[in-house]
């Protein structure tokens, strides 16, 4: 299915490329600008189309398929461009066109040389739905002529529309490129481990192992509770008084735990036995032997059904269905240390950090900015210049002494070093807010003064409401900064209970990096809250970037 889709895209690209080249030809004839863009885009599209696998044919689109190495394509493009330029030179008599044409010819010669160098390069013409004959060839030429005639007949309006289309095509292609990593992230978070790698390109349609419920009398799966946690366990023995000794299988964070419980406290549940197929049979695995072999109970063909046989793993193929493996998410959450309550504690810490940082920054930055903007006191301008200068100071210089300072305060392994500094007004935010305060007309303030409002009242009641949008921007930037903060937790936090998401994610990567499914599930969960916030407060995000960028002026 994927290959057909690719083929369709390739065919479409090839046709569009051909159309662009024809348009370039037409533009040349009309001596209109934009030849190079059209020809270049057409060449690129054809080049792109050439990556489509050639073995896939169909969909009823008639096509001539040319398979050529890059050098050949480049030669063709150079030849085409040279012809265009020389033609223009003859028509217009402009000298620079002639030079351009010569340069293209030279470039073409280089590519011809490159093409000759590669012994394995050859050009093949693969036939699509229409055969390569005199009839089809002449009809293609006829098609081209008709297309150019149609272009000539088309009005100026059509030209504009095609320009728009080109812009949209470029933007759409860009969005797809930018969105591809997200798509990959999401798909991977739903894939089984064995689909993480594939010799025929990436797997975009996740499949999941088919299982059948299987009540195994010899090795039952038990469901029960262990220290308040739901567990599934296998029976590993019995004590002298008849209690079960069991070994936990799920959740993953308790796997391998062995404990004793009364038989009544457990419920026998069916196992998920993986369905496998082999030479002429389908069955499911009932047991894994110590030496690596597997016992399979047949389900088809009927003549064998119910019988068991032992196989080497290499002789068995898993039976799988198209589905999303949501278990990656539950596994990722189960794999978090027990004391983090399936990662909820990470989220809680991040939220604490974010909320306190935002509150602290808003309060402190706004009041400091207000003082710098509106109150007069000796040394104000000097102090403000110092404030601006600190914006350039690299964090590295203060990193170690700050660590020693927090250590002497006993703040190691707490969230304090991460949010307390927010209450001491960051230089950039002060600067930004000051610009906004300065723009508020003094009349407002004077009115407040006449009403007998003090400094704080004026600030709180009159000035602050005026700069709400700027405050929102500062809040969002602080939010992002706090959510992102990585080096801080790396230095100061030592236990999972105090860890925010960013650091937890990095640790998860360094510990469980071998399991991309779980990794990507966790990464998706970390990104989701930020994305949600973005969609609710898009305006402020965009404004924030704009303000920060112009802030330096």
């Amino acid at each position, binding site marked *: 299915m994927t290959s057909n889709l690719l083929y369709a895209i390739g065919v479409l690209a090839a046709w569009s490329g051909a159309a662009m080249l024809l348009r370039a030809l037409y533009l040349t004839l009309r001596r209109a600008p934009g030849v190079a863009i059209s020809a270049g885009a057409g060449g690129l599209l054809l080049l792109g189309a050439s990556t489509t696998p050639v073995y896939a044919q169909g969909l009823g689109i008639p096509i001539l398929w040319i398979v050529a190495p890059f050098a050949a394509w480049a030669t063709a493009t150079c030849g085409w461009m040279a012809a265009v330029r020389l033609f223009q030179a003859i028509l217009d008599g402009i000298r620079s066109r002639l030079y351009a044409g010569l340069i293209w010819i030279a470039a073409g010669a280089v590519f011809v040389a490159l093409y000759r160098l590669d012994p394995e390069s050859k050009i093949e013409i693969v036939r699509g739905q229409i055969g390569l004959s005199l009839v089809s060839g002449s009809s293609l030429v006829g098609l081209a002529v008709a297309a150019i005639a149609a272009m000539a007949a088309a009005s100026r309006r059509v030209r504009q529309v095609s320009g728009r289309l080109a812009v949209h095509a470029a933007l759409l292609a860009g969005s797809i490129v930018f969105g591809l990593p997200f798509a990959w992230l999401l798909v991977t978070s739903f894939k089984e481990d064995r689909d993480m790698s594939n010799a025929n390109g990436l797997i975009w349609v996740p499949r999941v192992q088919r299982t059948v419920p299987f009540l195994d009398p010899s090795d039952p799966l038990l469901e029960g509770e262990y220290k308040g946690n739901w567990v599934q366990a296998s029976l590993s023995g019995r004590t002298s008084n008849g209690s079960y000794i069991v070994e936990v299988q799920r959740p993953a964070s308790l796997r391998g735990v062995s404990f004793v419980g009364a038989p009544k406290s457990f419920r026998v549940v069916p196992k998920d036995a993986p369905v496998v197929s082999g030479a002429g049979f389908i069955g499911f695995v009932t047991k894994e*032997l*110590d030496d690596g072999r597997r016992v399979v109970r047949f389900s088809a063909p009927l003549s064998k059904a119910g019988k068991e046989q032992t196989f080497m793993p290499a002789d068995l193929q898993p039976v799988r269905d198209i589905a999303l493996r949501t278990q990656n998410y539950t596994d990722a959450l189960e794999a978090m240390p027990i004391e983090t309550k399936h990662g909820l504690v990470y989220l809680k810490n991040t939220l604490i950090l974010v909320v306190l940082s935002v509150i602290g920054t808003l309060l402190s930055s706004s009041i400091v900015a207000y003082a710098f903007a509106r109150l007069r006191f000796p040394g104000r301008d000097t102090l403000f210049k110092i404030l601006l200068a600190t914006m350039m100071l690299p964090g590295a210089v203060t990193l170690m*002494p700050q660590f020693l300072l927090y250590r002497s305060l006993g703040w190691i392994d707490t969230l304090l070093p991460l949010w307390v500094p927010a209450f*001491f*007004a960051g230089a950039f935010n002060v600067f930004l807010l000051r610009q906004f305060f300065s723009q508020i007309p003094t009349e407002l303030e004077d009115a407040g003064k006449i009403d007998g409002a003090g400094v704080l009242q004026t600030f709180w009641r009159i000035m602050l409401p005026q700069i709400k949008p700027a405050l929102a921007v500062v809040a969002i930037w602080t939010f992002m900064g706090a959510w992102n903060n990585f080096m801080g937790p790396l230095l100061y936090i030592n236990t999972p209970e105090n860890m925010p998401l960013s650091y937890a994610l990095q640790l998860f990567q360094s510990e469980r990096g071998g399991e991309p499914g779980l990794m990507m599930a966790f990464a998706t969960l970390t990104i989701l809250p930020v994305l949600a916030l973005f969609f609710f407060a898009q305006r402020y995000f965009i404004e924030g970037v704009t303000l920060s960028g112009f802030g*330096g002026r």
Partner: protein
Amino acid sequence: MALSGFGRADTTLSVWGAQLGPDSIAGSLAVAQTFETRHPGVHLRLLGLGVGHMNPQKLLTAIVGGSPPDLIFQARFNISDWASRGAFIPLDPFIRRDFNQPDCPREKEYYEAAWSEAVYKGKIYGIPTGADDRALYWNRGLFSRERELLTKAGLDWRRPPRTWSEMLRYSKALTIKGKRAGFIPNFGNAWLYLYAFQNGASFLSPDGKSCTLASEPAAGALEFMKQGYDIVGGYTEANVFQSGFQGGENDPFISGQVAMKIDGDWSLPGLARYGPGLDFGVAPPPVPDDRYYRRGRFANEKDQFITWIGGFSYAMPRGCPHPELAWEYIKFASSLEGRLIENRAQASSDRAKGRMYLPRIQGLKAANEALYKLYCPADPKFAEGLRVHVGLMNSARVRPATVVGQLLWDEHVRATEQTLLGKLSPMAALSEGQQTVQREMNVLASKGGYPEVSFAVVGAIGGALALAGVILAVIVWRRARLGILARKEARWGYLCIAPWAIGFLVLTVEPMLASLFFSFTDYDVLSPPRWVGLRNFADMLGPDRANVIKAFANAGYLAGMGVPLGLASGLAVALLLNVGVRGIRFYRTAFYLPAIVPVAASAVLWIWLLTPDPNKGLINTVWRSSVGSWLALPPPGWLTAESWAKPALVLMGIWGAGSGMILWLAGLKGVPASLYEAAEIDGATSVRSFWNVTMPMLSPILFFNIVMGFIGAIQEFDRVYIMAGDDSNGPSDSLLVPAKYLFTNAFGYFKMGYASSLAWTIFAVILIITLVQFRLAPLWVHEESLK
């Protein structure tokens, strides 16, 4: 159990460095949980925390910060580095006390090599659990297919090579240029250490005071490696050949593209998983001919074959909150019973995933025997492989226990590379490494020669500065001569800026002065600083110059490539969007989204996108079907290849360039339409009006972003830390950046003084670059906007 007395109700025992990867988590947890059930009230907390291997930062900050764990599961090879800093507690008193208990670890029950690696200055600092040794893997099927070839070369195709010269001959016979390599000396896991040990080299003098890296035997071993590489076409060729095959299923040994390799016992599970049908054999790694035939230097040598081992040990950090309980845990986890529990749990977990279970080699002799009996695979070649690995344990060597173990390792890698690249002769390369190591050993030995600085002096200087500040403030206040109202307003003013002022003094001025002071000292936080004058700066310009230059050069690359490319791509998108197409909100969101993904998340995501294996990594899959197929270029190694690591970061930066796009969009909106109209009347083409109208109008934004971009790029840290790994600087230090280097020095080696001088250098560099940019600005930034 009489031991329950150790733990009061609800004692938490924390273990760091726990192996929680998919191939070990079940076993680690099983041991911990069994311990819990036997000691009611004790709760075990296993954490990986990225420690235990070569990255000491987390553990050291915890020890210094006063919250260390009870136990650390540590790579044995680094234990002496730690012990020498007084960071670990010696375990001898515990062993002496409990010597007669059945579960007490006793030296004679362990392989000599495994035990001795954790011994520093006669004291034991860690009890070994796992051990890994290296053996020769040879493709029996291939040997048999190529029997004619081998017979013609006078070689026996039924057996693997046993000596170095045989090895080279087999390799020569089996190598087909560009298609198949007979033997690549460093493919798998051998390093110079293995060949040097085989040749009788030792890396330290017996008293441990001088480095003997540059010895005849080591040089001979390096010469052998060089010959081995020459047969397969040279070091660079071999690396290119190798880089095409990352990932377990692409193992060139499995596909028959490498006929022989030396690798550790951990490669057996990989073979079981990805190449169960491969007909291979495992044998002791070939040794120098003289050693094999016991002649010359080796006439009286006991061991015919030699391997080297590494592995992990449990150790107790200084300040461990529950030493008794921690010792109980060490005893349990390293005992035969503990080892069996771990393996049983891991076996059942692996089998549940449908994989064959192959136990790993242990440091405890009895554990190896028991595990071999229990989990002997049905397939004879795997059984044989396991047996060979176990057998080799008796003639294993280990890397020397020394303060400078890590440095010695790094330098030996560097010397190997230099020789194999043909830049230096073996002896010259090894001598260079030896000098570096020796210098560091001398510095550590001479530490006492510098005077201690008492904090009272520092405090006094600080106090004097503060007093001067107060006096200055009072003078300013007096001079101002304010009226009553103005005075009141000024008081409010000071009150309002107090949050910033206090923060500025406490969190900026004070740390800056402190860091300036530290830059003239040798300070490891564990003991008082010692005044060394300008030595730190001299080191930076002298012995450590190469690293410092490399770090700044890397940062310069990231800034020089990343900033312009990021800005340009943002501008390109903004220009497209600015023509007034419909759906601008959609496109804007699509391009901007990557910019708001948290750095940690995007770094983790990109590690996977950039996986070099084109069957796994998105980027290389696309590469393989586009650029790769057009130009017949092999997919780049990205983060695993020296020349691609930085471009990988730049690429990732472009993905996150959405905020630049928004900025440009806003800027473009601000360009007055009248200017374009005027240009059109003058007959300017769109290209011309872009360069002559748009760009000058946007130049202030460009300027601001270049300045900020450079400042940011020079301080790059988060991405590099996550993507290169916490204990690595990328291949050949290609991702060594100043901030990371500073961080490693400060919180990894605890060279606070040196790190401070680095910090000030970074500051100076940023300041100079920024000033230069401001100076150059009038030349190209549109003047009106510069005021």
